[in-house]
């Protein structure tokens, strides 16, 4: 099993969700996060004073998937979240040791 963490632009969340549901993904965890990458921050003006916004708002998606479909899921997220502009985000793939469904106690792929 793989654990996929994708940090994407907030406005792309809905498209990514639709794309993954089409692939048959049955759940995901989403959080509002802030961060910076190559995009760095940008400057804004508040009450006449310029300041640097160091951390940009992003959305973080976390999904556990079976090994077999991990590449497809990653490619789906990448293609949908892409705007060709700097700051589109990153996708990380980790090995996932175990998964447990809280209600039934099922483990492994059955719990995903």
């Amino acid at each position: 099993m793989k654990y996929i963490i994708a940090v994407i632009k907030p406005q792309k969340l809905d498209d990514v969700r639709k794309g993954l549901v089409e692939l048959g993904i049955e759940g995901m965890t989403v959080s509002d996060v802030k961060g910076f990458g190559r995009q760095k921050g940008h400057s804004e003006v508040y009450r006449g004073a310029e300041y640097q916004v160091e951390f940009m708002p992003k959305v973080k998606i976390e999904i556990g998937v079976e090994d077999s479909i991990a590449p497809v899921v990653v490619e789906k997220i990448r293609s949908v979240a892409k705007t060709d502009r700097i700051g589109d985000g990153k996708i990380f793939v980790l090995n996932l040791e175990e998964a447990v469904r809280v209600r039934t106690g099922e483990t492994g792929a059955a719990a995903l």
Partner: protein
Amino acid sequence: MKKPALAAAAMTAVLTTTAAAQDVAPATDTSVFVFNSVLFLISGMVVMFMAAGFCMLEVGLVRAKNAATICLKNIALYSTAGIMVYLVGYNLIYGVSEGGFIGSFSAWGADDSDPTGTGYAASSDWYFQMVFVATAASIVSGTLAERIKLFPFLIFVALLTGFIYPIQAGWVWGGGWLDARFDDFAGSTLVHSTGGWAALAGALVLGARDGKFAEGRVHPMPGSSLPLATLGTFILWLGWFGFNGGSQLALGTIDDAISVAKIFVNTNMAACGGVMTAIILTQLLYKKVDLTIVLNGAIGGLVSITAEPLQPAIWQAILIGAVGGAIVTFAIPLLDKLRIDDVVGAIPAHLFCGIWGTLVVPLTNDGVTIVGQLIGVAAIGVFVFGVSLAVWQALKMTLGVRASSQQERAGLDKSELGLEAYPEFVSG
């Protein structure tokens, strides 16, 4: 108590309208008394609600970690003002002898023994004056937000509302020494600049928030809720109709009714002028409209028209307010350059626009001189700023006025109140 009075007012209104259609019948003593009192009461109610306006404006412009504390300060300062105006303030304003410097130190009690002589219910006047005093105190809390300790602040408010404000207001509205040479209809100087001077003195003694001017640069600390700040501004705008309209002090005759209505229109248009000027100027200066400066622009316009909301033609009211909007737009970054930390922009809007509004009165009012206006602005400025500075300094050396750096970083909500304004993660 209120219901019969309102019913009587409505009946008189019907009678007056019918009378006006034919020959104008003179107002009776009763109708004058009732309408004057109703003007004070209704105006006083909306001015009281300005306390909520200030509270929302301030809570919107502070960071979330200081939101609950600013709410507490606002309701506490309003209550402090009420008690102090009763105990000593009112008679300091109105107990002054003609041409005198100081009123009497005594508690207020309603005297309705000669209703036709006074022309209004004594308590309606007290109420109307009391909410004005609270307004001046509200101005101070915004400037000093996010770093001042609660009790030293409230001690200052008690002295401001019990003594500092009443003494200088007595000079003009109480018939004291400034009255003959100086004109301030609803309090550009007496209320707004007074609050502004007290806030400026406090800001100087207190110093800037931690990190605000670190490394020689200005570090903006964006407010936690711009919708609340906007709501607060709208509430203040509404309250200003009572503030300026009620300051006609009479509604018992056709002339007075016409004046109050004109004041409403001019007050409104000055705020419009302030807003539009701030929108245009921030767009030109920063390539983006700055909402919070626009909100300050509305207040700046309102403060500017407060010294004379009746005489200006509508176009003059718009221009007077527009200059207020410009003053605010330029003064906010200027204060930053001077390293004076005014969290909500109260000093530009209330102090600077208050001075501007007072000095422009001779433009529209014959018999008011620029020299007289300057004397009033200077005398009240020196008195309020000087005494406030001394009080703040004394508080600093005794109780201390500032939260510790650690408390400030954690937020005053934690250190002063032990709670969070928005505790979404505490429990479901």
